[in-house]
């Protein structure tokens, strides 16, 4: 996260490979389910033996004695509709909800986040020196209206994408944050409205940032968790 500050995002998880290296983020939407982005995984049938999610700690690489840390193996990946660029990761066992591990809500189907809503991104990715890269960082971004964003992107915006406005200070997600949440406060609850996807440049000041629009896929998400 570039231009952010250390913060607490109890639904943000760190996804780690067999070497235990953090490589992408995710969001805990059910005790045993994490949402992330397809970009982070080699295939829809990837063998994720040895891959894990890490929750409940602010540290990217916590020491062995971190009291609230939970590390849970990933047992399965389910890809979303190909346009969605979403994946759901099933955990080997349910996460224990604590003051540092919480579920984030899913939005109602096709819910449109009102323009100007200040939402929050979170992750352990690259900070480009703007914050401490060893802890979880968060940053606030205002949602941009679909029409305005589509204009800024010269008509290239898809229905499955959600935009936030560029900030002069250069605030945004970066490598290692992909798959993490864009969370917006709705009816006093934090709701997963967007999933961070890779962009060619981090924290642009001249273009809106794009996220996967989760509310378009809530039906699929529910089905996967039910099935």
């Amino acid at each position: 996260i570039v231009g952010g500050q250390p913060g607490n995002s109890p639904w943000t998880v760190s996804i780690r490979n067999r070497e235990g290296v953090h490589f992408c983020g995710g969001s805990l939407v059910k005790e045993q389910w994490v949402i992330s982005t397809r970009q982070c995984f080699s295939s829809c049938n990837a063998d994720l033996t040895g891959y894990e999610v890490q929750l409940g700690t602010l540290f990217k690489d916590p020491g062995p004695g971190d009291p609230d840390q939970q590390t849970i193996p990933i047992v399965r990946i389910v890809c979303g509709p190909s346009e969605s660029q979403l994946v759901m990761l099933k955990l080997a066992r349910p996460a224990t909800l604590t003051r540092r591990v919480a579920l984030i809500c899913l939005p109602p189907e096709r819910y449109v986040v009102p323009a100007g809503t200040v939402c929050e991104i979170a992750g352990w990715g690259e900070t480009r020196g703007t914050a401490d890269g060893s802890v979880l960082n968060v940053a606030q971004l205002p949602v941009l209206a679909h029409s305005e964003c589509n204009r800024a992107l010269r008509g290239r915006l898809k229905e499955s994408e959600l935009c936030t406005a560029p900030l002069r200070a250069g605030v945004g997600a970066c490598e290692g944050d992909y798959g993490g949440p864009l969370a917006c406060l709705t009816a006093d609850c934090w709701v997963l409205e967007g999933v961070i996807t890779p962009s060619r440049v981090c924290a642009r000041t001249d273009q809106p940032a794009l996220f996967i629009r989760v509310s378009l896929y809530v039906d699929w998400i529910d089905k996967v968790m039910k099935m």
Partner: protein
Amino acid sequence: HRSPLNDFQRLRATELLAVPVDPPPPLPEQGTAEQCAQRCATSLACRAFHHDQQSQLCQLLPWTQHSPHIQLQKNIRYDLYQKKDYLRDCIVGDGSSYRGTRATTEKGLRCQHWQATTPHDHRFLPSPRNGLEENYCRNPDRDKRGPWCYTVDPNVRHQSCGIKKCEDAVCMTCNGEDYRGTVDHTESGTECQRWDLQHPHKHPYHPNKYPDKGLDDNYCRNPDSSERPWCYTTDPRREREYCHIRICTEKRPRPVNVTNGCFRGKGEGYRGRVNVTVSGIPCQRWDSQVPHKHHFMPSKYPCKDLQENYCRNPDGSEAPWCFTSRPTVRIAFCFHIRRCPDEQDAQECYHGHGKHYHGHVSKTRKGITCQPWAAQTPHVPHWQHGAPHHGEYAVTFEQCGQRDERLQQKGR
């Protein structure tokens, strides 16, 4: 520090099924796999054993999967350990310990049974120790050309069987990531440590954790994309060492899915020219050791196309990556390279989310047949077709999206 298991090849969840024989094999005994291996290794009659991890029982067996009237069968209760000498189809050293079932000479002549003295009389009489059984190739006199036999051709008394040395039997391409041969000694002759053991050297390469790396027994492998196959050694003073494996001349490297404008899978076949990290830091040239020292020299990784400073994936990481030119950031993934669209079945396709799809595909991506839409079993459809979406949402959430805002302020 040598484990008795080093003499054995392990087959998980497998048992040897034999027709009832007289005398029956010995009864199961209590013991760990290593204790059973110790007993079997010192018993001339024992060639294999079943090990039941649950009950810590093992049964010594006088046969292997290559013995007559024996067959392998899946059985999750047992792991089957068989003496390597009876399974390997190559030789170590001069092949004195070879106990395979090859029975023809290098010129294709059938071997004479060791029991027989015609057409060629000889003094090598079979015994449990010298392994002269049937008409299998053996090396009872430590001939440096390796196992041999008397032939059934009266004009040819004996002939070498031409069995290859293990380091030549299976060659390797590229850096040997796909090498699955049975060399279990390093280039200095030190025996390899089993991958499923953590002594004498602790290590992260558990076979269960890396199912696709072929970390069987104590064979040389290349799980971390080193220059060539290697292993942890049984010498406590030397953690790991390369092995000597012949490079293939006849076999072409496994073709990788070469892409340019996007990357597929983990991007091991990405040959595009993106050379800047997503945070705008230029990549370091692969042929440079500044600012970051590394072992991925282009010359040592001919199959990985480590050209210039392009994002590449020489070690099977999650995605193409590069060393960065910034001293404080060693490595960066290049996730910003577009991922190639999944190969769509040529069958049919849909636009957008498929709202207007009226095709005939009736199986899910994993091959599960779809339930007729009109049916109520096994799944009761929980929505009405085409139900209108409500304009306004009575947005209610429960048990989610709450957090302790005080933690937001307080750093840890």
